[in-house]
């Protein structure tokens, strides 16, 4: 968004309080949604829960195409549509709710850096596993991605998306990586997160921030999604403080508020 449009939108956003009927759109939970999209959606849900803002989750098969930027999830609040965690955080901030106000400048810099780390390594690893690992692609991804569409559209869309993702991997230098190297990168990333978390309850001590929401979204999804092999979740399980962290957020923000079970089971 240009600067003028952004300022305009912030003004409008600030003018109205958070409505009761805000909705979050994602793909179909049982049959369609993939690992990376589920992680992103869960991160946004966790963030909104932490801000104490009510949100209803609606599943649509064409959520990806409805979204203004092509990425899920996106939220529909009042008469505005915002997609992806970054813009959603800014939008919510314009409405007057923010989790990172109490941080000083250096901590804000670190928070942004760690969020980029998760996006750079964990998200890319998830995409790699879903679209570039032949076993997973054949057994899980193709079938799930194309499930709402009739033949031959399901195959065409799946191949198109796979080609796109492979191009992107090549551009950022992941095209030649093997699965083992990718898993090693995931391990490095988890190690960094675990060291940063240490023994604290949240990344910036007492209060959760958007970084906690993002990390929770990705790690929880990795831990609870069944893939062709368990290597990815094994890498995360090596770090006990990360497991405790996920459990804590799940209990505090999801179970206590009666949101019910979050996990999806892939067969």
């Amino acid at each position, binding site marked *: 968004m240009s600067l003028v449009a952004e300022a305009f939108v912030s003004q409008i956003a600030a003018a109205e309080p958070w409505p009761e009927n805000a909705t979050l759109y994602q793909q179909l939970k049982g049959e369609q949604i993939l690992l990376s999209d589920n992680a992103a959606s869960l991160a946004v849900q966790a963030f909104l829960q932490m801000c104490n803002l009510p949100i209803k989750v609606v599943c649509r098969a064409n959520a990806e195409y409805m979204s203004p930027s*092509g990425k899920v999830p996106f939220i529909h609040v009042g008469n505005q549509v915002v997609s992806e965690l970054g813009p959603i955080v800014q939008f919510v901030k314009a409405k007057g709710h923010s989790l990172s106000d109490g941080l000083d400048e250096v901590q804000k810099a670190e928070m942004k850096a760690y969020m980029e780390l998760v996006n750079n390594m964990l998200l890319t690893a998830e995409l790699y596993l879903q679209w570039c690992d032949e076993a997973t692609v054949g057994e899980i991804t193709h079938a799930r991605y194309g499930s709402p569409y009739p033949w031959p559209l399901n195959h065409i869309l799946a191949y198109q998306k796979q080609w796109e993702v492979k191009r992107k991997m090549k551009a950022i230098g992941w095209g030649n990586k093997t699965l083992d190297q990718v898993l090693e990168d995931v391990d490095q990333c988890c190690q960094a997160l675990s*060291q940063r978390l240490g023994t604290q309850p949240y990344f910036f001590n007492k209060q959760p921030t958007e970084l906690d929401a993002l990390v929770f979204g990705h790690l929880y999804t990795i831990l609870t999604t069944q893939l062709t092999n368990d290597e990815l979740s094994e890498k995360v399980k090596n770090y006990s403080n990360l497991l405790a962290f996920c459990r804590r957020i799940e209990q505090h923000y999801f179970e206590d508020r009666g949101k019910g079970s979050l996990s999806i089971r892939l067969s």
Partner: protein
Amino acid sequence: MAAPMELFCWSGGWGLPSVDLDSLAVLTYARFTGAPLKVHKITNPWRSPSGTLPALRTSHGEVISVPHKIITHLRKEKYNADYDLSARQGADTLAFMSLLEEKLLPVLIHTFWVDSKNFVEVTRKWYAEALPFPLNFFLPGRMQRQHLERLQLLCGEHRPEDEEELEKELYQEALECLTLLAQRLGSHRFFFGDAPASLDAFVFSYLVLLLQAKLPSGKLQAHLRGLPNLCAYCTHILSLYFPWDGAEVPPPRQTPAGPETEEEPYGRRNQILSVLAGLAAMAGYALLSGIVSIQRAAPARTPDTRALGMAEEDEEE
């Protein structure tokens, strides 16, 4: 003892030891750790063992060309700049490098390779002058296409509709990233205390390229100049670790008037000579092809006077 490690990288320009981001990062890391590398600064990427620059030929003859892998190899050979870092600082390194790659790299590519003014006046000019014949004709264009494609894939799919807005968004994020780096650095000499680490090598290479190259349209450069601690950080590392490379440029820069005024009288003389030569060539061609002919007026008069004289004689007789 096996053969020493050899590093092939782009040569220097604009006051820097190297003009390429990756080469600069690897060189800086090597200087930080004091790794005994034989550095070949070349301008012909086809001469390097892997076809791209930078490239490291290890002591066992293996060739590595991905910058991160080069640094990992140096670490394995016990030239580790991150040895003294705590676990938490190591985690911070990873996080900040991701931040650099996501926020600053796209804009750097855009500034040097996509922005048309910068590309024509700075980047392409340097590469066209530095590359040997006949590579200088097609290689800069090919490199630009590769970078453009990389940028398109990095930035996502909404390019066709709002390129201007995407550019503004990119620059805004980059400005934020620079401010964040400045805040993280504070008043320390390096990011993690008093000794440089691998993060410093990467941050330095990104920042110094932006700072030193004379860009005609450099909004990011202007913003960076407004962050004094980052500028001091760059000049400090440049003077400490690359003193002779940095010193190559100041003499020509300090006396810009000298060479220019010397050229002037020669320039004027050359101009006059070339104009005269042009005129002479035109006149010679005109005479030789008969467009212009010179006739002598004097012999035409004497037959008249003789004729008059004869007429007078006739009249007399």
